[in-house]
C-alpha cells in the first residue's frame, strides 16, 4: 500500500476522523459558553439548536444529558474500538495532513460551488447571484466564528450523517430502490433541505435564487466529501470555509 493510500485509509478511520473533529466541538462549546449569557442563552448554530431541541423536547434537561452521552459516548466507543483494532497507534503527522487537506477542500469549495452556480443559473454575474442579505453576516466577528465552528460540526452531523443516511435508508426500505439510486436521491434531497435551512429563523438569510443554489450545490459537494474522506475532514472543511467567509 502506498503512503497516500495509507493516509487516505487512516484519515477516514474513526480514531483519526472523530478525534480530529473533537477540537471543533470543544472550541465551539467553549466559545458559545463564553459569549452566551449566564443562563446559557445566546446565539448558537441552528443545527445545534435543532438537534438539542429534539432531545430537550423528549426529556428536558435529562434529554440534553442523553444527547451529550450519545455524542461523546458513541464517538468514544467508535474511537476506542478502532484504536484497539489498530494496536493503539496514532500518528501526529496524519492529523497535520488532515488539517492541510481540510483547508484545500475549504478553498476549493467556494470556487467549485461558485463556478457550478454560475453555470447552472447562467447570465447573471456571480456577485449579483450571491448577494444575499441579513443572516449570520450581520453578527459580530466572535459570534460569527462560533457559529462557523458549530456549522462544521453540527450541520455535518445533522445533514450529512443523520439526514442523508436516514433518507438513503428510507428510500431503500420503503421503495426498494437500489443503493446507488437511493444514495443519489438522498444526497440531492438532503442538499436542498440543507440549503433551505439557512433561510429559516430569526437569523435566516434573505431568500435569493443564487445563494440557495450555491448552498444546495455546496451540500452535494459536502456529501461527496463525507462519503469519500469521512466526517472529520468534511467537518473541518466546512468550518474553515465559514471562518474564511467570516474573516473577509
Amino acid at each position, binding site marked *: 500500500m502506498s503512503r497516500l493510500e495509507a493516509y487516505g485509509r487512516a484519515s477516514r478511520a474513526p480514531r483519526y476522523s472523530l478525534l480530529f473533529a473533537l477540537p471543533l466541538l470543544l472550541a465551539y462549546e467553549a466559545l458559545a459558553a463564553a459569549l452566551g449569557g449566564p443562563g446559557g442563552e445566546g446565539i448558537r448554530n441552528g443545527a445545534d439548536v435543532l438537534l438539542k431541541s429534539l432531545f430537550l423536547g423528549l426529556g428536558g434537561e435529562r434529554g440534553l444529558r442523553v444527547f451529550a452521552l450519545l455524542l461523546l459516548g458513541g464517538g468514544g466507543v467508535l474511537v476506542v474500538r478502532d484504536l484497539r483494532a489498530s494496536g493503539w497507534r496514532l500518528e501526529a503527522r496524519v492529523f497535520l495532513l488532515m488539517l492541510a487537506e481540510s483547508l484545500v477542500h475549504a478553498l476549493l469549495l467556494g470556487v467549485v460551488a461558485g463556478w457550478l452556480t454560475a453555470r447552472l443559473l447562467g447570465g447573471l454575474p456571480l456577485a449579483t447571484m*450571491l448577494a444575499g442579505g441579513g443572516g449570520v453576516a450581520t453578527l459580530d466577528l466572535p459570534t460569527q*466564528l462560533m457559529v462557523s465552528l458549530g456549522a462544521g460540526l453540527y450541520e455535518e452531523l445533522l445533514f450529512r450523517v443523520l439526514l442523508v443516511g436516514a433518507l438513503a435508508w428510507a428510500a431503500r426500505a420503503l421503495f426498494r430502490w437500489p443503493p446507488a439510486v437511493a444514495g443519489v436521491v438522498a444526497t440531492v434531497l438532503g442538499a436542498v433541505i*440543507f440549503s433551505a435551512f439557512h433561510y429559516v429563523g430569526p437569523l435566516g438569510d434573505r431568500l435569493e435564487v443564487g445563494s440557495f443554489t450555491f448552498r444546495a450545490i455546496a451540500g452535494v459537494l459536502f456529501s461527496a466529501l463525507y462519503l469519500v474522506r469521512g466526517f472529520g475532514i468534511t467537518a473541518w472543511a466546512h468550518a474553515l470555509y465559514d471562518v474564511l467567509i467570516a474573516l473577509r
Partner: protein
Amino acid sequence: MTRAARAALPALALLASGCAQTFDATKLGIPAQMSAAAPVTPGQPAVEGVRFAVGGKAVHAFWGLFTLSQPKLDQALAAQLVGGGEVRELRIRSRLRFWDIVATGLTLGVLAPRSVTYDGVVVGGNPPPQVPVGPTAAPALPQPAPSPQP
C-alpha cells in the same frame, strides 16, 4: 542530526515566517507612494488631498506561512481613484488583535488573521465623500458580494 534538532527546525521556520508580513506596492491595485515631499512651510501638511483610513483583515494559512487574502485598497477607494487619482503618504499597519489570536487558536493556526489598516491621502481624481479618518474610525473594506456560508 538529533531528533530534537530535527523537531526544532520546522518550529524555527514557522517562527521566522509567521512574523513576516510583506506588502507588495504593485499588488495594492492603485498608484501609491509611501513617502511624501517635505512641506513647503513648517506646520503645513506635506500633501494636499483628503485623508482616509480603511481597515480589513489579512488572512494567512498555517501559522502565517502563506497569505490567503489581503485587503485591497483599490476596492475601498475605487470611486475616489476613477479620475486618475493616486494615494500618497500611504501607511500600512498590521496588528494582531485579540480576536485575531482567538481565531488563530480556534482553527489551530490553519487560518491566522491579522487586522490591517491603510491610511494616507488621496490626491487628484474624483473628490471623495467624507471618509472617516483615524484608526478608530476605520471602516471595514466594502465586501465584494461574499459567498454565502453553507
